[in-house]
């Protein structure tokens, strides 16, 4: 594996040098940051793009006739072009929101309350993040749709038989499903799922909050109707996320939030709406953050997803191998196709104690239900510990995790 990585020129030490925070020490130890799935660290290029905007090219966008506003609007709209290219979409199909959560809520409100009718069904899976479950529960309770939960197999993959059962009565109008589970690491077969949903006359929304960080995403090749992700997990700033929607879907959708910038014309009596994507961007947008996201996309593109995916596969394989050597450690999920996220339990030690004791050694992992409480319970747990990897993660850090866990076991001995 490492040969393959070298071949495509992946130099993890050079990458690490791009992330200032990785030089920090925690409790006197070198920081080993294994919590990138919650939010990734930011490279110098992203920080610089934001600083440059604030220091040299900042003003409110779109309506300004002066130099600063024009330059800042160019940068902001330039980021939209970058995101469009990143997903292989058209720029009119890219709506900027705060995060993946807001993107799903936007679809639930705007598409959900107009195209979906009371009695129609929405299907999600057992392995959704709360962001792709709670908005549909809220839509169910306010709008009378039915919400169905497609099962996963014991391996932690989607159960296609159960999916078929859920679709059998022809009432499903939307399949809203993760592209990669933030607990099990499972990738879902999105092309197949899109074809499946479309064959039943349903639309598909993909929660790419995790997947978009690790793999090249081509919404046209997938034939996704909606795709969402968050900037902060993709080495970009917080406060910026993306909703992709097929042009004809966005065009037919009413606005979600009302205010400046999303209108065509306003009178006291009545307003008419701008075209997508502006129809869905009310008020002053997250200008600096959007430009930062553009820089993040440039950054990952410069490394290249082939290299990123190979690096993360190698890390994950290594982690699964060395963690399985620890007595009493159980990894959740054993999907064939999985990404750089490993959740586990340790017999006799609560996940919180694992996380705290690792932190004392400078190792940052997450513990809890990872905003997937029903899945965690479905797996028979209250909470689990989770290590997750980014472009800057090294094999040595995974070995540090293993030593750290042995130390935890000693304390609990």
């Amino acid at each position, binding site marked *: 594996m490492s040969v393959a990585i070298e071949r495509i020129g992946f130099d993890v030490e050079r990458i690490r040098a791009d992330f200032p925070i990785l030089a920090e020490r*925690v*409790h*006197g*130890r070198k920081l080993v940051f294994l919590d990138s799935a919650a939010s990734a660290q930011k490279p110098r290029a992203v920080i610089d793009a934001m600083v440059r905007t604030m220091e040299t090219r900042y003003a409110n966008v779109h309506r300004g006739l002066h130099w600063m506003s024009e330059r800042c609007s160019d940068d902001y709209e330039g980021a939209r072009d970058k995101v469009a290219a990143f997903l292989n979409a058209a720029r009119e199909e890219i709506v900027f929101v705060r995060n993946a959560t807001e993107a799903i809520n936007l679809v639930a409100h705007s598409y959900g309350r107009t195209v979906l009718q009371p009695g129609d069904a929405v299907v999600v899976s057992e392995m959704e993040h709360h962001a792709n479950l709670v908005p549909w529960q809220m839509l169910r309770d306010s709008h009378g749709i039915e919400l169905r939960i497609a099962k996963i197999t014991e391996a932690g993959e989607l159960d296609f038989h159960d999916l078929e059962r859920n679709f059998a009565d022809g009432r499903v109008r939307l399949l809203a499903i993760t592209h990669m589970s933030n607990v099990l690491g499972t990738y879902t077969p999105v092309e197949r799922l899109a074809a499946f949903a479309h064959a039943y006359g349903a639309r598909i929304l993909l929660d790419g909050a995790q997947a978009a960080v690790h793999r090249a995403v081509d919404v046209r090749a997938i034939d996704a109707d909606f795709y969402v992700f968050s900037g902060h997990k993709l080495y970009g700033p917080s406060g910026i996320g993306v909703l992709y929607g097929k042009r004809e879907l966005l065009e037919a959708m009413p606005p979600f939030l009302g205010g400046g910038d999303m209108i065509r014309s306003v009178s006291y009596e009545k307003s008419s709406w701008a075209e997508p994507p502006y129809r869905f961007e009310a008020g002053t947008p997250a200008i600096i953050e959007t430009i930062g996201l553009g820089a993040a996309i440039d950054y990952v593109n410069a490394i290249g997803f082939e290299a990123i995916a190979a690096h993360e596969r190698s890390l994950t394989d290594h982690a699964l191998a060395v963690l399985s050597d620890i007595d009493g450690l159980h990894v959740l999920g054993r999907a064939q196709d999985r990404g750089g996220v490993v959740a586990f339990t340790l017999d006799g*030690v*609560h*996940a*919180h*104690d694992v996380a*705290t*004791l690792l*932190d*004392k*050694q400078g190792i940052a992992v997450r*513990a*809890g*239900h990872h905003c997937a409480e029903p899945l965690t319970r479905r797996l028979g747990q*209250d*909470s689990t510990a989770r290590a997750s990897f980014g472009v800057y993660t090294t094999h040595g850090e995974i070995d540090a995790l293993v030593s750290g866990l042995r*130390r935890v076991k000693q*304390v*609990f001995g």
Partner: protein
Amino acid sequence: MQDVASIEDLYQNLIMERARAPCHAGSLAAFDAEAEGDNPMCGDRVHVRIRRDRNRIGALSHETRGCAICISAADLMGDAVIGKSQDEIGELADAFETMIATGNTPDRPDFADLRALSGVHTYRSRHRCATLPWQALRAALGKTEHRHG
């Protein structure tokens, strides 16, 4: 600002002992009040039952599903409050919560082994683990007060 901390700082012997083999775990057969505390963030749950002995706590049991900090906090709480009056327990609970919030151990004789938990202070996100049993106890005491006038 942070010292190089020994990993055992927080997980002292006493804490580990009580986490492994708590003295007050289980459910009193007869009790005057009970209450549950839970932390939905992590799934920790403490069920406290108390029996009164005139104006004092005669016995306490806890059923705790949670981490080592939470179990040992519940158990050391049991040691500390049995034989105390409601007012004394209120003071103790305040002192305990202050210790967790500030990291300073109070200078009071009735505090005894509760000091073992002072290290939780440096872990903001674990404060709830240590204070959850006390919260449940306060709730249980509130009910007996209610019932007994």
